[in-house]
C-alpha cells in the first residue's frame, strides 16, 4: 500500500478504534441486578444433589441396601439424622436410598441426553445443511423414531438386551435424539444461507467443513440450552421405567424403584412413596427452571 493511502486509513482507524461499549455491557448489568431467586434455588439444589450423590460413600449415611433401623419409620422420627426421612419396609434409610438413587438418575439422564445431543446434532446438521437426499433419509429416521411410543421402545430394548444401566442409557438416548436432530436441523437450515456461510464457501471451504466449522458453532448454544429440559424428561422416563420394574435392576437404587417398593404401604407409610417422588419432582423442576432461564439469556432465537 502506498503511504498516501496508508495515511488515509489512519483517519478511519482513529474513528473505528473506539472501544466497543454500550448496549451489550449494559444489558449484562441489568440481568445481574435482577437476582433470580428461583434460578439460584434450582442451581443450588442441582449442585447439592450432584455433589451429594457423587460423594455419597464419604457421607455419614447408612448403606442404601442394608438394614439401618426399624421398618416403616415415618419422617422426622427420632432415630438419628441418617433416618430423618424414615425407612422402607426392609428398614433401609430413605435418605440414603434417595441420594444413591439420584446418582442413577443423574448418570442416566446426563449421559443419555448428551449422547442424544451429539448423535441428533450431527444428523440434524447434515440434514439441514446438505439437504436433498440426506435430509429425506434423516427426516425419515427422525419421524420413525418419533412414531414409536417411548415406553414400547424401551420395553422392547430391555426385552432384547439385559435390563441394565447401559441398555437404559441406549434406549433413552435413542428417544432424545429426534428432539435434538429437529432442533439442529432447523438451526442449520437458517444458517446455511447466511452471508458468512456463503462467504466461507466463496473462498473454497468444503461443504462438510463449512457445516462443522461455520454452521455448527453457531447452533451449539441452542442445542446446549435444551440439554437441561431433555435431561429432566429423561429422568421422568427412567423413573417410569423403574416403576414398571423394567429399569436398572436391584441392588442399584433408583427413584422409580423406591416408589415401586413403597407403593403397597402408601396408606400406612406414605413417606416411602413421597420421598423419592419429591426428589424426582424437585430435581425435574430445577432442571426445567435452569433450562428455561439459560435459554432466555443465551439463545438469541428465543428472544426474537
Amino acid at each position, binding site marked *: 500500500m502506498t503511504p498516501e493511502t496508508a495515511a488515509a486509513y489512519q483517519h*478511519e482507524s482513529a474513528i473505528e478504534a473506539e472501544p466497543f461499549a454500550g448496549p451489550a455491557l449494559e444489558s449484562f448489568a441489568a440481568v445481574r441486578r435482577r437476582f433470580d431467586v428461583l434460578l439460584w434455588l434450582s442451581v443450588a439444589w442441582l449442585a447439592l444433589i450432584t455433589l451429594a450423590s457423587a460423594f455419597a460413600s464419604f457421607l455419614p449415611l447408612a448403606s442404601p441396601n442394608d438394614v439401618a433401623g426399624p421398618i416403616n419409620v415415618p419422617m422426622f422420627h427420632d432415630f438419628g439424622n441418617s433416618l430423618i426421612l424414615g425407612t422402607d419396609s426392609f428398614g433401609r434409610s430413605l435418605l440414603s436410598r434417595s441420594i444413591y438413587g439420584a446418582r442413577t438418575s443423574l448418570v442416566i439422564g446426563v449421559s443419555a441426553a448428551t449422547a442424544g445431543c451429539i448423535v441428533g446434532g450431527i444428523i440434524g446438521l447434515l440434514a439441514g445443511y446438505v439437504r436433498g437426499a440426506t435430509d429425506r433419509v434423516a427426516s425419515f429416521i427422525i419421524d420413525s423414531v418419533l412414531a414409536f411410543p417411548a415406553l414400547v421402545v424401551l420395553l422392547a430394548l430391555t426385552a432384547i438386551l439385559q435390563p441394565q444401566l447401559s441398555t437404559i442409557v441406549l434406549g433413552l438416548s435413542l428417544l432424545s435424539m429426534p428432539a435434538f436432530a429437529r432442533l439442529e436441523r432447523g438451526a442449520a437450515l437458517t444458517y446455511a444461507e447466511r452471508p458468512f*456461510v456463503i462467504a466461507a464457501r*466463496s473462498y*473454497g*471451504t468444503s461443504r462438510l467443513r463449512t457445516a462443522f466449522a461455520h454452521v455448527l458453532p453457531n447452533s451449539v448454544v441452542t442445542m446446549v440450552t435444551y440439554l437441561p429440559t431433555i435431561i429432566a424428561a429423561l429422568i421422568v422416563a427412567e423413573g417410569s421405567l423403574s416403576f414398571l420394574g423394567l429399569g436398572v435392576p436391584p441392588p442399584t437404587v433408583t427413584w422409580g424403584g423406591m416408589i415401586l417398593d413403597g407403593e403397597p404401604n402408601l396408606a400406612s407409610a406414605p413417606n416411602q412413596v413421597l420421598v423419592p417422588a419429591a426428589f424426582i419432582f424437585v430435581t425435574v423442576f430445577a432442571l426445567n427452571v435452569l433450562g428455561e432461564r439459560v435459554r432466555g439469556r443465551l439463545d438469541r432465537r428465543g428472544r426474537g
Partner: protein
Amino acid sequence: MTAHPADTSLNSHDEPVISVSNLRTTFRGRSGPMNVVDGVTLNIGFREALGIVGESGSGKSMLVRSIMGLLPPGARRSGDVTYQGRIAVDLDSDALRKLWGTAMAMVPQDPMLSLNPVRRIGVQLMEPLRLHLKLSKDAARQRALELMSMVGLPDPARRFTEYPHQLSGGMRQRVLIAAALACGPRVLFADEPTTALDVTVQAQILVLLRTLQQEKEMAMVLVTHDLGVVAGCTDRVIVMYAGRIVEAAPTPRLFSAMRMPYTQALFSSIPRMDLPVHTRLEIIPGGPPDPAARLAGCRFAARCPYVQDKCLEAEPPLVTSDDDNSHLYRCWFPIERSATMAAAPVPSESRV
C-alpha cells in the same frame, strides 16, 4: 446510424482471464422459469477493472455468482465460462471449490453479516490459507497478520484474536477483502462491497480495492448500482438490465457518449449538486420487467421515454458503435452523441 452486429465477445483491452459466453441462469418460479441472467457474453481481461451497473433485480449479483458457480440452491445455469482457457462451468463441486479463493474470490455485499459471529477474526483469515496453500498454523498466522496490515487494518495482532462484533463495518470489510485476497486470486469479484458502509468509509474501501487490484495485477469486477462508484474505480463498465447486457464501454466513453436510454436514465437519477435545492430527483418510472415474462421487444421499452413501435416488436441486438468498437449497446434508436452531452431535460413541473 451505421451499427453492425457485435462479434461474440465484448472486446477488452488485453487477453481475457475469464470468458463468459451465452451464460444463462434460471430459477424455477411459480409462473414458469425465470432467467435472471439471460445470455450474457463477456470477457474479463487480465488486470482489468470492470464495473457492472444496474438497478436492483437487473441480475448483476446473479451474474457474478453464476460466473463463479456459487449459486443458491435451485438455480440452474447454462452456457460457457472459461477460466484461463479451462472450461469452468462443468467442473464438479470439488474442482470448482479449488478455484474459489485461488483463481476467483469474492468480496461480499454485507460485511456486518459475512463474518462468522462465533469465530475469531484470525481463525477465519487462516482458514483459506490452510485450506489452499496448506500452510502450517504458524505460517498461516504470520501470513494472516501480513494480510491484515496489507488491507490497512490497524493493530493486526490485537484484531487477530477479536470477534467480528468488536470491529466496525469498515474494518470487517477490510478483513473480508484480506480473506478474499489470501490465496492470490486472479479475479476479484466485489459484489456491492460498499453498499452497507457509510460514505467516508465507502471511499476508503474503494481506494483500497483499486490500489490492491493494481498492485496485485488482478482483474476486478465491481458490482454496484452506483455510477459514482464505477466512475473512479473501473476501466470498463457493463450496464445490465433484466438479465441482459444493454451497454458496455470503456468508463470515460460511457460517461461521455452513452447510447442506451437506460444508461441515460440511470445517469439522470444521480442527485446533482448544481441544481437548485429541492429539485425533485429524477426517477425511472416503473420497475424492471418480471423475469418470468416473455417479452417480444426491448426489455426497457415499457419505461423508455423514446419508445417507438419497433421497440415493442423486436428486441434489439447488442451492436458495436460505429465510431468505437469497444462500445456496445442494445438499442434500435440510440441516443445521438450530441444529445448525450445534454442529459435528459428536466421538465419544469418536476421542480417543487
